[in-house]
């Protein structure tokens, strides 16, 4: 095990509220790899929803808040590629828009310390095998931001291939959007649903029990439809797969409740 890092977790507003299990899984994986986690309770949101919906000025105080909270963090890990892409692609633009040179400088200083979770494992830690076991047939959904903004390429796939027992099945049209697009799914609900129907068909055609991704936003969208149709396919964030061991699986009642601080080493 290399140097132990102090990782500051930005859970993101929707994971915090809707997918706490993903945050627990991130904590579990990183602690198992020997790193210590901090959670700054002042954190809220990255501002993406406001920005992408056109509430540009309203996004700026949220961006400022994020920068303030994480200003002195050593490393920031985020289990959501779209939030990371919001920071990398739009934060400087937002600072420029309001003519705030100080904010722009702060953002520029902060961005090199911001990592998407799978990117952090592969690029910063240089780890592919995180000691996980997950005996299921799994397909991977490539989220738009992970491929076109973060250019994660095959990083998530490499991590998944190292998981014991996991059978990874390829999906048709991996490059095509699932149709979520944040408020697009509401403002253009019909077109979004049509896109979703196509994507769900691709997921179901794989015969996988589990569809995973680096973004719970797409997964929430996919699962919304798959549950409505009462299909047997579940959606699970990649962190939860990587946190799983032979003893505990993410949808298991036992997991991840009251995990000990240090699970200690790989199994």
């Amino acid at each position, binding site marked *: 095990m290399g140097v132990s890092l102090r990782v500051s977790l930005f859970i993101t507003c929707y*994971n915090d509220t809707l997918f706490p*299990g993903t*945050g*627990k899984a991130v904590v579990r994986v990183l602690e198992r790899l020997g790193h210590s986690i901090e959670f700054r309770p002042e954190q809220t949101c990255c501002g993406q929803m406001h920005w992408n919906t056109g509430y540009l000025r309203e996004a700026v*105080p949220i961006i400022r808040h994020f920068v303030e909270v994480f200003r002195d963090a050593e490393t920031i890990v985020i289990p959501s590629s779209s939030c990371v892409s919001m920071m990398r692609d739009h934060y400087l633009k937002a600072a420029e828009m309001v003519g705030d040179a100080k904010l722009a400088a702060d953002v520029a200083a902060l961005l090199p310390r911001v990592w998407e979770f799978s990117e952090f494992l592969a690029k910063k830690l240089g780890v592919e095998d995180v000691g996980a076991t997950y005996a299921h047939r799994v397909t991977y959904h490539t989220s738009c931001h992970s491929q076109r903004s973060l250019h994660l390429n095959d990083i998530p796939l490499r991590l998944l291939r190292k998981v014991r027992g996991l059978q990874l099945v390829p999906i048709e049209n991996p490059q095509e959007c699932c149709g979520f697009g944040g408020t697009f799914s509401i403002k253009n*609900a019909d077109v979004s649903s049509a*896109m979703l129907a196509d994507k769900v068909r691709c997921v179901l055609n794989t015969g996988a029990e589990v569809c995973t991704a680096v973004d719970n936003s797409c997964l929430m969208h996919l699962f919304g439809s798959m549950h409505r149709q009462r299909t047997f396919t579940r959606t699970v964030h990649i962190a939860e797969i990587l946190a799983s061991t032979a003893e505990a699986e993410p949808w298991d009642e036992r997991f991840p409740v009251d995990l000990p*601080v240090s699970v200690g080493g790989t199994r």
Partner: protein
Amino acid sequence: MTPPETLAESRQNFPEAARELLADSQIRKNVRHATDVIQAKRNKVVAELPDWQDLREAGSAIRAHALEHLDHYLAQFEANCTRAGGQVHWARDAAEANSIILGLIQKHEAKEVIKVKTMTSEEIKLNAHLEAHGVRPIETDLAELIVQLGHDKPSHFVAPALHKNRQEVREIFQREMKLPELGETPEDLCAAARTYLREKYLRIKVAVSGANFLVAETGSVCLVESEGNGRMCLTLPDVLISIVGIEKVIPRFQDLEVFLQTLPRSATGERMNPYNSIWTGVHEGDGPREFHLVLLDNGRSPILADKEARQTLKCIRCAACLNVCPVYHQTGGHAYRSVYAGPIGAILTPQLHDMKDGRSLPYASSLCGACYEVCPVKINIPEVLIHLRGKIVEEEQKTLGGKLGLWNIGMQAAAFLFADASRFSAAQHLGQMGQKVFVSKSGFIEALPLMLSGWTQTRDLAALPKQTFRDWWAAREEREEKAR
């Protein structure tokens, strides 16, 4: 300047129009098939070029430079075109352009004109204007001919009849060309069109074209096409009138080297267009005796003035962004209710209207970024979409209705919560308790009110977990504290 009233086809907004199109299985099937075919061809020929990304970069730089110095290059083009015997006309808007073109046609006492496919003429509704004044325009591009004979509208600006399949084309030709026995093979259909058009090329003395590029340093005009109908229209008639947007100018002849590689590969998946026509003014005994070039502004100048959105005008109309767009895949072009469809239409149309029309179009995207990835001149369409959404929101917030609208209230409330973690946390707790009325027996939310009903019309939502991550973390910290 009169507003370019002619661009948007109707006031119907995108979500409503899309809903209608989504109910048309035939169109959806045709669109999906056609875009898949073009997209696969495009990917194949783009992958052949090791310097594709450099070509994109170069194309982007050339177009951006030309736009930064548009006044200079347009004047240079006009001088060089005029010197070579061409006549340049400046049209502020659609009405001016239409009246210039009609005047030229009437001067030559022509009752019919042949046309090479031009989006710009669609933009100014030239055909309707000519017909209203007793001039019959005849489209010679095969797909445009199908659209014209079918009394239809283009749904794609490279393949305007992409929403029609072969059987539908056959029916149109049978009816309009009076060929009840016509077969349905591509050969049958092309032969019918060829026979129909050939006579017109030989007889009609005035042609109207668009153009892909204007070369400032030589005063040359460049038009690329696949069928040879363009070459016929550009060379056979006595009079040629080309209608071109002011943004189409490029500085040097050499710049064509970049675009003649990127445009055909992006547009039709061809390495090179079968017909590349470049002409400079007029030449005694060769081609038209009179050449008129109408430079059209029609709402372009204000776009230039917007630093964020200016890149919109770099577009070379390859339509690669339509073919790759998952929204366009579902609806086809007619849902945009605009001459310019797809992602580029979603940013171009409202801007050409000074943001007074086509206002739902910037929202007709999931911001997936596929359009930016394929764009041969690197227009960051998602970035411009967001910029335009910003403009729309800001304008709406100036009205009382906008201020009190659900979206604005919701977004202001969310911004208030996100400003402070204790407020956000309180809202989370409120949500956990308040959701009870919406959670069904299955533990899922299956119906939500107001705008959120858009979600639940096709999707369930898992109920909020009992404990947020931050509460779990706080409890864990507390336990550890005690254990110490």
